[in-house]
């Protein structure tokens, strides 16, 4: 046994920053967390920011659809069937009167049996704001009748026209958005959960577990998507409430979407599990679930989010396609796909083109998610050269 050395502590002052003193600015940069750096990087991606803003706006709108929509989803206006969109004007005969629409003069063209609506300049109908309109139950909880904007008393305001039962397309679009946009979120949540679990297990354990999961994924991916959706959704009983059907559809979409994500997770984990810190955690006795969730996943969470963002549009499109084929959501629940089904005839194309407007929000959301996802993917690797 050797003599124990005396414990020595230098008394000299030590300044860890004596080599290089960081300014407050620099400090903020170098000490920034990964998320912060992603945010900085994302901000530089113009398109992604704009897309993100548009998405935030549309998702905010679905929180307050009842207030935004001037009419209820099911309000029928029998006197205004197939009315074309009414434009919002501000000036009447060169005089500013605030936002208003011109009322319609209606004639039934008996020759071709077409309902014809002509804006009548004598009928100036000023829009009202924060007004009382159709009754609603806000999120099924609070009763109310206040709307952001309503037509003039006794007037009409069909900003996007009306459909064959005289229902306001603008209001229907807003309500449809609530369904279609949330389908994507719910679906991706399910797919995320499944993808991370299966991918994580496969990547971390490898061996036969990996084998089983991989083969499962291959089988799932080899099934043609559309017929599978169709079979699953045709199996939904007709007596289910629309809400139940909605959840079933999201689950179906989620169940079929996870393999891609699982693959990404698995390949990342295969590489990361060999890292020293992973071995250290295991040696310290951490259980696999803790190792995966606490030590491995955060390493590429940003990637996952980016790829999830990119697969939301496919969910929205999937729902739209299913509903369009009449296998997804059913009226009275209204989604973009349901609205598009109703425009699936030659009359909509030739006579009432505004019925095809639901295409627009589908395109906008899908593009929005694609741009945002693109930006996020770049941002997820903040050190990459631009």
């Amino acid at each position, binding site marked *: 046994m050797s003599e124990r050395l005396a414990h020595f502590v230098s008394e000299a002052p030590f300044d860890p920053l004596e080599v290089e003193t960081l300014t407050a600015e620099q400090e903020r940069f170098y000490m920034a967390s990964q998320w912060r750096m992603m945010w900085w990087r994302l901000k530089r991606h113009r398109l992604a920011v704009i897309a993100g803003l548009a998405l935030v706006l549309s998702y905010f709108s679905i929180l307050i659809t009842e207030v935004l929509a001037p009419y209820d989803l099911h309000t029928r206006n029998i006197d205004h069937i197939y009315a074309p969109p009414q434009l919002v004007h501000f000036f009447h005969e060169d005089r500013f009167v605030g936002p208003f629409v011109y009322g319609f003069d209606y004639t039934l063209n008996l020759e071709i049996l077409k309902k014809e609506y002509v804006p009548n300049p004598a009928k100036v109908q000023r829009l009202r704001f924060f007004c009382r309109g159709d009754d609603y139950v806000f999120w099924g909880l609070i009763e109310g009748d206040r709307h952001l904007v309503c037509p003039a008393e006794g007037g009409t305001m069909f900003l996007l026209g009306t459909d064959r*039962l005289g229902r306001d397309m603008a209001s229907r679009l807003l309500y449809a958005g609530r369904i279609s946009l949330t389908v994507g979120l719910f679906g991706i949540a399910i797919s995320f959960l499944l993808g991370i679990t299966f991918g994580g297990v496969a990547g971390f354990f490898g061996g036969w577990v990996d084998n089983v999961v991989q083969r499962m994924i291959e089988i799932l991916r080899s099934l043609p998507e559309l017929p599978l959706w169709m079979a699953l959704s045709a199996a939904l009983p007709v*007596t289910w409430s629309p809400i139940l059907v909605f959840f079933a559809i999201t689950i179906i979409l989620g169940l079929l979407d996870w393999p891609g994500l699982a693959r990404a997770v698995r390949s990342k984990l295969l590489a990361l599990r060999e890292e020293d810190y992973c071995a250290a955690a295991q040696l310290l006795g951490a259980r696999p679930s803790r190792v995966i969730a606490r030590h491995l996943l955060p390493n590429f969470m940003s990637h996952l989010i980016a790829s999830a963002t990119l697969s939301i549009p496919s969910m929205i499109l999937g729902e739209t396609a299913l509903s369009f084929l009449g296998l997804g959501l059913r009226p009275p629940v209204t989604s973009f796909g349901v609205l598009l089904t109703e425009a*699936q005839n030659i*009359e909509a194309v*030739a006579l009432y083109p505004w019925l095809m407007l639901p295409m627009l929000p589908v395109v906008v959301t899908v593009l929005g998610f694609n741009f945002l996802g693109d930006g996020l993917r770049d941002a997820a690797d903040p050190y990459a050269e631009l």
Partner: protein
Amino acid sequence: MTAMTHRILVHAALAAVLAWAATTARAADRPALVETPMFADAIAGGTLPPVAMRVPDAPRILSFDGTKAIPGRHGGELGILMGRVKDIRMMVVYGYSRLVGYDRKFELRPDILDRVDVEDGRIFTLHLRKGHKWSDGHPFTAEDFRYYWEDMATNDVISPTGPPPQLIVDGERARFEVVDERTVRYSWSKPNHFFLPALAGALPLFIYRPSHYLKLFHQDHAEPVALQRMVEEKRQRDWRALHFKQDHPYKYDNPEMPSLQPWVNTTESPAQRYVFVRNPFFHRIDAEGHQLPYIDKVNLAIASAKLIPAKAGAGETDLQARNLGFGNYTFLKQGEKRNDYTVRLWQTAKGSHMALFPNLNIEDEQWRALFRKADFRRALSMAVDRHEINQVIYFGLATENNNTVLPASPLYKPEYGTKWTQHDPKAANKLLDGLGLRERDGDGIRLLPDGRPLEIIVETAGEETEQVDVLQLVTDAWRKIGIKLLTKPLQREVLRNRVFAGFTQMSVWSGLENGIPTPELSPRELAPTSQQQLQWPKWGQHVETKGHAGEPVDMELPKRLQELDQKWRVTSDRASRAEIWDQMLKIHADQIYTIGLICCVMQPVVVNNRLRNVPEKGVYNWDPGAFFGIYGLDTFWLAPDAG
């Protein structure tokens, strides 16, 4: 329309002795015949005899009296669109060559036959035209009737169940005799009211067959070795299957089979385009001596049913009504000028354009009990806002009536259509409360006694979006009386089978087939007589199968309807028959076995401006009518310009 239907003398002929005055001229007064240009080469080449040898000695001469039609010219091709390959049978319907057929006034006239003698409504003597030939030039004779009766209808192998029901009266088969080469006789000991209408049907009873052709496939006639070889070649199980396969006078998909229709099929199935070429031996001519049909070829193009309105609007058809709906009218009308066609609106003759059929034979006991309560059906009917349906979907041009006979029928009384159809949710609610359906769930939906919500699934063949729209309006209206309606679209066949099996709660279909009957027409549609009656399929099946399947009627009033129907069969004077009709219609009006939603919706007909002789106004009906059949597709012709 009124004048027309008042003269539906269809069966006035049946009771008394009646021989139709021969509407056809003897050979001597046959006008000088005009050769058909299309056959010029074939005649010159000797493969086809000249027209004088082709038309019967006493052809049917169409004078076009009382119509705006004018004699035309030969030639041209007519394009028609069909939604399914199966629809090529429409050429047999439109062609409407029948032993006897309805004319525009819905009176029966001999067509293929020279004349019919009817004695006591039970002895029918059919006289063929001299020199009438099949489309392959083989003579059409009494042998063709004998072949059908002896070698098919009463042959144990081909018809194990015996002849079709129209040839049986109270269990007694027809007595068939060949009088001479051109005369056959069918007789029963009691009157047969269904015989002639069956021959004139849109889907006719074919009591004759091209015997010279079918004998090739019949064991009793064919040479055994050759027959066996053909069975193997065509990959059929046995000669019976082969015979069935070759014998498609209505399906019209066997180009080899000779026919008596104006155009014969020349295309093997399956195909996307079927060409029907004029029958060189057709028996009708016009007053100027043109052998009909005027048009050389009819091309049926098969297109997706959903695309047909678009194609019609683009001028891709010369004559179209099938697969077009009232909702397409505006679109079609807009394309009129650009594509040189005219859209006409024809009347329809169904009792109801759309009606709901509560299934009184549903398996579920609770629902069955409920559907069988008249007050429940009345409440459902009164809750429907027919005025709104009319305004929203039909521009207010339809009739807000229950499913019953139309004003054009001499049997019509306004109260048949209006009882229990006034929109009155309050009264409907009261009726439902009176039935003890007072409990409601959180959404305000009433509950069945066993606690299930009152959700009615209406199953639809979903072939028209219009149905879905109307059901949407009904859904909203029924909500107000605490009943939830759900719509389930199904394939037509699946829907029917589900109804027959008693799984379906309620279905949507069109109403009475013939909305313009006369007292002489059988009221069987009003009584449980057929499985196809979606409100009581099992009772109907019981009648159809003579008690072997289905269920006997176990409700008082439907039983009464059956008795009345039986009574009609043995009654022969007009007043008593009208009285029976009246009683039956009253029961229907009061009991609302079917809930008529809307009636008398017009049918758009797209007509190429070059196509002549298509009436401006007509009745578009399946039976009687055969759609274009009674207006004579063979008399339509193509002018060189729209003029």
